[in-house]
Structure formats: C-alpha cells, structure tokens
C-alpha cells in the first residue's frame, strides 16, 4: 500500500474580489477570507479515495506558509488526511517563496517520509504558476503525471488519464510518482463539522525550511503587480448605416 503526500496551499478564497495594493507591490491579503486552493482540495480528495479503496495506507498533508497555513492543513485532515506537516515560512520569506523552493521542500519531505506518491493541485489560484508538480518530479527524479483527470492505481504502476489540449492522453508509469490534479479528477467532499472536530486531534508537525536543509532565499523580485485592463463599455447604435460609419471610423472595415 502506498504512502501519499499531498501539498496544500492557503490562498485567498476563490469567491473574493482581489484588490491590488496602491503601491503595486502585491495584492491585499489582510482581513481577506482565505481557504484551501481548490485544486489542492481535488488532490486531497483523490488521496482520500485511494485510501478508501485500500490502495493507500497513510495520507500526509503539507503546507508551506505562515501560522495561518495550519487552517488549511486542518481542513485537509478533516477531509481525511492522517497527519499534517506545517513548514513555517513567514513574513518576508513567504512573500518571495516560489515553486522552486516549495518543490525542494516537498521533495525533501517525500524522501524523509518514504512516500510512494506525491499529489498536488495543478496550480494555485493566486499565483497560477503551475510549476510545483513538475519541479518536484524533477528534484526527486520521479516520473510525473500532470493534469490528471483519472487515476488508476495498480500494484507497482499507475495509469493516469491526462487532460491535454483538445483531448485526453493516457499514460502509465512506475511508482513512485508525482501527480498533479486537474479540475475534473473528482468532486471534493465538504469538510463536515464533526470531521473538523475530529481533525483537531490529528497531529501536525512543525518544521522550518532550515530543518529540511532548503534555502528559501529569493530567486526573483516582483517588479510590479497591476490590475487587468478595464473593458471599455459598448455602445448601442440605431441602424446599420451608423454601425458601418462607426466601423469605418475605427478602421475595422
């Protein structure tokens, strides 16, 4: 039976309207509702389903970030993970934390915990990097099955259906493996109140990147963060002639 490591990220809730800071250094996060990255919920759900089918023995949920990241680990535990690892990265370090750092941390934990599968969401809805799964596979030198929409686990190998442009690709690879979850892999369950209560008894270990021997010094600097351009309002024209005139004026005809 496989041991599964799942990466979960705390992000601004998907339903919140994002506001950019006036000094263009980033987005407003203070006093804003946060929750687990939706793609990571799908990753957790897949791990829990593997466990329910007796194909996985233990599920470990990992999150890198400030103290509040423990909230999403709790949610993961409430959904069915067995234990959590909180990699504490706070303040300035967290602002510049990149997939390269996270993938090294995940790889290190994967080796320490002797896991057979790493499942992560394909991307986070805040920075949309879509790099962590690929980089983790590279650091570990394991096969990667990204954008999974179906996972079938065998004894020593795994069959994954991937969502590629305009179709599906089915691949087979040996364990251990890194999988990234796409939107249609499954429908995540809701963390119910009794399960949240039970999750409070499950253990969360706290480590720092230093304990794992990972250097989290920044590789890039954010130059500026800006709002997307505002869509120009449309106009309603009385007849075809006016439309043609307007199109000519705009140089479209």
């Amino acid at each position: 039976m496989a041991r599964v490591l799942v990466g979960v990220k705390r992000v601004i809730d998907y339903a919140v309207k994002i506001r950019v800071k006036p000094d263009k250094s980033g987005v407003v996060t203070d006093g804003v509702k946060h929750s687990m990255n939706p793609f990571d919920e799908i990753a957790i759900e897949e791990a829990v389903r593997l466990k329910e089918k007796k194909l996985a023995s233990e599920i470990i949920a990992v999150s890198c970030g400030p103290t509040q990241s423990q909230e999403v680990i709790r949610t993961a535990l409430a959904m069915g993970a067995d234990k959590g690892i909180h990699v504490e990265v706070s303040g300035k370090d967290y602002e510049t934390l990149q997939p390269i750092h996270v993938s090294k941390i995940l790889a290190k934990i994967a080796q320490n915990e002797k896991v057979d599968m790493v499942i992560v969401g394909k991307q986070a809805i805040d920075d949309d990097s879509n790099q962590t799964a690929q980089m983790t596979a590279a650091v570990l030198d394991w096969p990667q099955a990204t954008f999974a929409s179906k996972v079938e686990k065998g004894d020593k190998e795994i069959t994954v259906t991937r969502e590629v442009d305009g179709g599906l690709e089915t691949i087979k690879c040996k364990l251990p493996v890194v999988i990234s979850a796409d939107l249609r892999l499954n429908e995540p369950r809701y963390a119910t109140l009794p399960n949240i209560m039970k999750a409070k008894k499950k253990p969360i270990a706290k480590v720092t990147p230093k304990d794992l021997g990972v250097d989290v010094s920044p590789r890039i600097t954010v130059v500026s963060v800006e709002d997307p351009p505002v869509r120009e309002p449309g106009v309603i024209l009385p007849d075809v002639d006016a439309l043609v005139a307007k199109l000519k004026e705009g140089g479209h005809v």
Partner: protein
Amino acid sequence: MSYRREVVQLYKTLLHLGKDYPSGYDFFRKRLHRAFMKNKDENDPEKIKNMIAHGQYIVKELEALYMLKKYRTLKRRYDL
C-alpha cells in the same frame, strides 16, 4: 423520546455551512433561526422526524450548491 440532540446537531451543521453562503452569513443565519423558531412548539414526533429529514436534505443541497459554484467559477476563469 426527545429529538433535542438531533435538532441541535442539525442547527449547528447548517450554521457551519452558512458561513460560505453566497448572500452572506448574516442573511443565512437570520433565516435559519426563523425557520427553526417557527416550529419550536411542534410536539408530534412523526412531524419532527420529517422536519429533521428535510433539514438533512437542505444540508446535502447546500454542499452540492457550493461544489457546483466553485467548479463553475474555476471552469469559467481558466477556460477549462
């Protein structure tokens, strides 16, 4: 036999779900409270059982609503 425990449990579950309600927690909480208070004097065990079953149905519906809302938002946002 008293249904007090089940009713309280149902109320708590619904309150918890209400935190994610699209029209806001306050909107949800007021209505939830009103719905429970309306039937506070009900004594017929059969009717209470039916109402609890209805409450559990609402719980399932809310979970489905949130899941669908999230799925649709992501699908639209990422053009998947």
